[in-house]
C-alpha cells in the first residue's frame, strides 16, 4: 500500500495563532507550531489542555476563533470536514466512532469515499463503471484490513468486535482514505500492554508509508517510544516541544502533569 509521498521538505502542517473559545472558556489560547513531514508527532498534555479541541480544529469539526491552519501549504481552518478529508487528512476518534451496524469491511470501504466519484444517479441507474469501481473499493479495503491484520474478520459487524480490534479497525478506515496526515486520538485508550505494543508497531509501519502521524496519547511509554518529536500543551498553550529525550528532562512538563513532588521522584 503506497501513499503518494509529498515532495517538499516543508512542514506538512502549520498552526499559527490558533485560538478557540467556547463561550467564556478558552480551549486553545494561541498555538504556534510546525509539524515536520513524515514524522510521528506526539501531542501530550494534562486533561483539558486542548488536545482534542486541536484535533477537532484540524479535521474541521469545529472552526477556530482566531488563527490559521495550513496543510501542505493550503489553508484549511474553517473548511468542512469532508473537504479536509479529501485534501489528505484523516483521523480516528477518542471514543471509537465506528459504524457499528455495518460490517468490518464496509467500515473500511466507507473510508474509500473521498477517492471515488460515482454518485446518486450513476448508482441508481447502475451506469457502466459502477461494478468495477465497487471491485476496486473492495480490493483497497482488504489491503487496509490486511495492514492492520483484521482481514479474517471482514464479515463481522463492527459493533461485535472487542475494543482493541475496534481501534485497529478505525485506523484501517482512516488509512483507506489514503491520507498524508493521520490524526490518532488516544488510540491506546483501553488497550492492554500487548495490544499497545502492537499498536506502536503499527504506527511505525504507518510512518514507513510516508504518512505523517499526529498522535495524542496519555500512555507515556508509547509516546516516548515511538514519537520523533513531542508537543506539550497545557491550558490551551504550547508549553514546550522537542525530542522525547528533551521532554523527559524538562521539569516543567513533569510539573504540569504530576506536580512538584513527582518531579523529584521521576528525575
Amino acid at each position: 500500500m503506497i501513499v503518494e509521498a509529498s515532495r517538499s521538505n516543508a512542514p506538512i502542517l502549520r498552526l499559527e495563532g490558533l485560538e478557540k473559545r467556547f463561550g467564556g472558556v478558552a480551549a486553545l489560547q494561541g498555538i504556534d507550531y510546525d509539524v515536520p513531514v513524515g514524522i510521528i508527532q506526539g501531542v501530550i498534555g494534562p486533561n483539558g489542555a486542548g488536545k482534542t479541541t486541536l484535533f477537532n480544529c484540524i479535521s474541521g469539526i469545529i472552526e477556530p476563533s482566531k488563527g490559521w491552519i495550513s496543510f501542505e501549504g493550503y489553508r484549511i481552518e474553517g473548511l468542512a470536514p469532508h473537504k479536509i478529508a479529501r485534501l489528505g487528512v484523516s483521523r480516528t476518534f477518542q471514543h471509537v466512532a465506528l459504524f457499528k451496524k455495518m460490517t468490518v469491511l464496509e467500515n473500511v470501504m466507507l473510508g474509500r469515499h473521498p477517492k471515488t466519484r460515482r454518485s446518486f444517479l450513476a448508482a441508481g441507474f447502475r451506469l457502466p463503471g459502477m461494478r468495477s469501481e465497487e471491485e476496486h473499493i473492495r480490493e483497497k479495503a482488504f489491503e487496509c484490513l490486511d495492514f492492520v491484520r483484521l482481514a479474517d474478520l471482514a464479515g463481522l459487524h463492527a459493533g461485535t468486535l472487542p475494543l482493541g480490534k475496534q481501534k485497529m479497525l478505525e485506523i484501517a478506515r482512516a488509512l483507506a482514505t489514503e491520507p498524508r496526515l493521520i490524526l490518532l486520538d488516544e488510540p491506546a485508550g483501553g488497550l492492554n500492554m500487548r495490544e499497545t505494543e502492537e499498536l506502536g508497531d503499527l504506527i511505525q509501519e504507518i510512518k514507513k508509508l510516508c504518512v505523517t502521524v499526529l498522535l495524542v496519547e496519555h500512555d507515556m511509554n508509547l509516546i516516548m517510544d515511538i514519537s520523533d518529536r513531542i508537543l506539550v500543551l497545557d491550558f490551551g498553550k504550547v508549553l514546550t516541544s522537542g525530542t522525547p529525550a528533551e521532554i523527559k528532562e524538562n521539569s516543567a512538563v513533569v510539573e504540569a502533569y504530576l506536580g512538584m513532588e513527582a518531579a523529584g521522584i521521576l528525575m
Partner: protein
Amino acid sequence: MGKKNWLILLGTAVFICSFPMLVTKIKAISHYVDVMVFAGIFTLVCIGLSLLMGYAGQICLAQAAFFGIGAYTSGILTTKFGLDPWMAMPAGMILSGLVAWIIGVPALRLRGHYLAMATLGFGVIVNIVLAEEVDWTGGPSGMADIPALQIAGYKITSDIAWYYLVWGIVFCALIFCLQILRSRVGRALRAIHEEEKAAECMGVPTASYKVRVFILSAVLAAIAGSLYAHYVACINPSSFNLMWSIRFMLMVMVGGMQSLWGALVGAVLMTFVGNEWLRMFAEFEILVYGSILLAVALFLPGGIVSLASTIARRRAKRASALEDAVS
C-alpha cells in the same frame, strides 16, 4: 444486488403479478385490486421516505406536501393548459425536486426536533397554499375532471390496467433505490445515520447527501402524486394535509424504517387497514392510527421487517444449536 434482495424482489414481483388474477375470482374481495392501486401509489411515497428516515436518519413530516405538489402540478397542467399527462408528470417531479432543494438546504442543517418542526411547518404551509390559491387549485373543493393517462393511444381506465402500471413504476423505483443502497452512496447514507461526524471526516459530504436524498424522496412522492391525480380524477387539499404526512410516516414505521421492503409492507398493510377494515369505524381512524404509531414506536421500533429478521435469526440459532446438540 445481493442475492437476498434479488430473491425478495422476484418473489414479490411474482406475487404482485398474479394477485389480480387470484383476487378477481372471488367476488367479495375483487375490489382489492383497486385498494392495491392505492397501496402501490403510497408505496412509492414511502420508498423515498424510508430512504430519508431509515437510511439517512432524517425525519420528514412533509411527505404529503410533495405528494400534493405532484398531484396538483399534473392536475393544473392537464386541465388548465391541456398538457399531455406524460409531460405534466416530469414537470411535477421537477417542481417538487426544486422545492425540496430550496427547503432542504437550510432545513437539513437542523437536527431532531427542529428538523421535524421545520418539515411540519413547511407541509402545513403548502397545504394552506393549495387551499387558498383558488384560481389555480380550485381551493378547498379542489379540482376535477383530470384526464386519464394514455399509453400509445390506449386510455388507462380499468383498475387492472392501473394496477399493472402503478406497480410497474413501483418496481422500477425499488430497483433504482436498491442499486443506490448497495453502492458507495448507500454505505455513506448508513454511515451518516450512525455517526455523522465520523462519516464527514472520512470524506462524505453529509450535508449535500442529505439534501439529495430529500430531493429524491420528494421526486418519488411527486410521481406518486401525479399517478394519484390521474387515478382518482379529482383532488382536493384534504388529501395532502398533515394527517397524510403522518399516515405515510406510520406506514414506513410499521413496515420497518431500515428496509425498503418495510416501506412496501407497511404501505400495503396500512392501506388495507385504512380502506377496508377501518371503513366502518371512520371516527376511530385517527385514534387507531395514533395508537398503532405509539405501539410501534415503543415496542417495535424496527417495524414488521425487524420482527421477521428476529424470527429468522432465532430459527437459525435454534437450528445451529440443534446441530451442535446432535453432533
